[in-house]
């Protein structure tokens, strides 16, 4: 990528203390996001997949600055956010918006739909009349007739309608990047498809950049240009959607893909691709995080940090098997691209 990415994360780290002991001192730390770096080009959709607890949502919350990273920086248009000489935080907030998973919890039950959508612009100094106007036109744009829906309260809407309101709310600040944190996961399939198509239309119309977080691999494939696979707070694999889905390198990605439900009976899986739960993210051991569940794990996998390695053009994978001379018995076969 030669152009400056619209949003870039550099070595993001977020740990949560595990309280314990007499005085509630942090005894140990959950490594929710551990040294994660990636860049998103303007107009791109980056899909983020992984099991629950792998750090997808924490990454999202770091990107919108709902959480402060313990280390690392987030850059908007190549400029760091929230530091002197960088992008001011309020500016960044206007440009990066988020849609949450729980459509009910993300709307204030005491505000009408219109007031919820108009809230963001109001905060940023837009007049009441103009904010309301913008809210109404956005509601119309997401498929909710303002004359019928503007005055309603969240509990009077269906899940799909509420999520449309949430999308309108995120767009009300005219952001350039929208982070969709499991935004369609709670919807039933037919509604999910409608909302996904709406999201694609909106992306084209407003020139948006999406970070699309989901555990549904089919949905991610449909929505994304590139895919980032996360495992226990680290990036396992990152690459264009075609090469991830057709040429997955990391054993974890392969396991995820083989667990994907398929319409083709011949591709039906008969055995579980992975055994066990992901290991405890509290103070994880050194080396590859996946080694405990990986059938190719060897002794070298437990030594040192595994870096992302180029496994093809724009395809990065954090597995020793794809690194020549890494000491793994498979790594001899790896080729330098």
């Amino acid at each position, binding site marked *: 990528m030669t152009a400056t990415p619209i949003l870039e994360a550099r070595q993001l780290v977020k740990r949560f203390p595990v309280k314990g002991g007499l005085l509630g001192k942090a005894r140990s730390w959950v490594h929710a996001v551990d040294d994660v770096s990636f860049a998103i080009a303007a107009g791109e959709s980056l899909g983020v997949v992984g099991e629950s607890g792998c750090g997808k949502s924490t990454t999202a*919350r770091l990107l*919108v*600055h*709902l959480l402060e990273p313990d280390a690392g920086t987030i850059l908007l248009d190549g400029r760091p956010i929230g530091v002197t000489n960088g992008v001011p*935080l*309020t500016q960044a*907030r*206007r440009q990066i*918006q*988020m849609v*949450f*998973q*729980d459509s*009910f*919890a*993300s*709307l*204030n*039950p*005491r*505000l*009408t739909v219109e007031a*919820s959508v108009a*809230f*963001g612009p109001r*905060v*940023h100094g837009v007049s009441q009349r103009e904010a309301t106007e913008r809210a109404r036109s956005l509601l119309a744009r997401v498929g909710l*007739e303002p*004359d*019928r829906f*503007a*005055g*309603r*309260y969240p*509990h009077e809407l269906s899940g799909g309608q509420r999520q449309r309101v*949430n999308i309108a*709310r995120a767009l*009300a*600040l005219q952001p350039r990047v929208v982070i969709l944190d499991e935004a369609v996961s709670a919807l039933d399939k037919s509604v999910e498809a409608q909302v996904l198509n709406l999201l694609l239309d909106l992306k084209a119309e407003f020139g948006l950049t999406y970070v699309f977080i989901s555990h549904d691999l089919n949905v991610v494939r449909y929505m994304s240009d590139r895919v980032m696979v996360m495992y226990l707070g680290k990036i396992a694999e990152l690459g264009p959607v075609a090469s991830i889905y057709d040429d997955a390198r990391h054993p974890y990605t392969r396991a995820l893909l083989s667990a994907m439900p398929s319409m083709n009976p011949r591709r039906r899986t008969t055995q579980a691709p992975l055994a066990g739960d992901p290991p405890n993210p509290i103070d994880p051991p050194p080396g590859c995080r996946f080694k405990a569940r990986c059938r190719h794990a060897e002794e070298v996998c437990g030594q040192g940090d595994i870096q992302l390695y180029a496994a093809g053009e724009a395809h990065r994978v954090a597995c020793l098997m794809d690194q020549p001379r890494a000491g793994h018995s498979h790594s001899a076969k790896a080729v330098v691209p």
Partner: protein
Amino acid sequence: MNLTATLPAVVPARPAQGYWRSVLGRLVRDKVAMFCAFMLLAIVLIAIFAPWLAPYDPAAASMLKRLQPIGTEGHLLGTDELGRDLMTRLMYGGRLSLVMGIGPVVLAFVIGSLLGVTAGFAGGMVNTSIMRTVDVFYAFPSVLLAIAISGALGAGLVNALVSLTIVFIPPIVRVAESVTTQVRSLDYVEAARASGAGNAVIIRLHVLPNVVGPIFVYATGLVSVSLILASGLSFLGLGVKPPLAEWGLMLNTLRAAIYSNPWVAALPGLMIFTVSICCNLLSDGLRQAMDVTR
């Protein structure tokens, strides 16, 4: 598929009905709550207009007409141990008793909500310091605490009011803190923060409207407790002093007549009971009316 285009006039634009108006609508349909509200309103009005409604002077004693039974001519509800008309004294007594029942709860509601919402929203050290201080008060049974504070401050109406307020602040802080902590972590507060809103706006628009209801319902339930505690303080001589009329105090002075004239002696207690149960039932109705189904 555009359904809205095909039915333009069938579904008219619904006027935005406020949340509190819809709560009121549901409350009005609750017969029990409405009956209780009516009773309370009647009692409050009678207490307010006691000087015009009462047949006698509440302090006018008559040695000849002591402890008359209910239904005595001229004294419909009988007389007390000093021959004062009981109906008059019940009407006047309602004034002080209601002040003692509602006053501390209103004060504690304001102060307690302020502290609780602050603790819940700020979290961390602020939360810990406020909540642990409150826990100290929790260590004492409420009656004991009220008596202790009243005893330390000395008898009197204002001191009883202050001591009851102090007694009711801790439970309200607890409720306010727990509701606020719940609301604070909800996605809509996060979304508001993500759109760049400051804490003041978030609290005013997103937190307060969502926590004030549950705290208010809890506080209305405390009115009956306050009334009983206030009566208890008066009974012990720590609240209102004779010859002032107050239900608790009347219960105290009339207890000598409990064997000779039980019905008359029980009347102030009956008033306390009626107001308490009406408050509790109204509070229950309010909670049901405020419960918005998802």
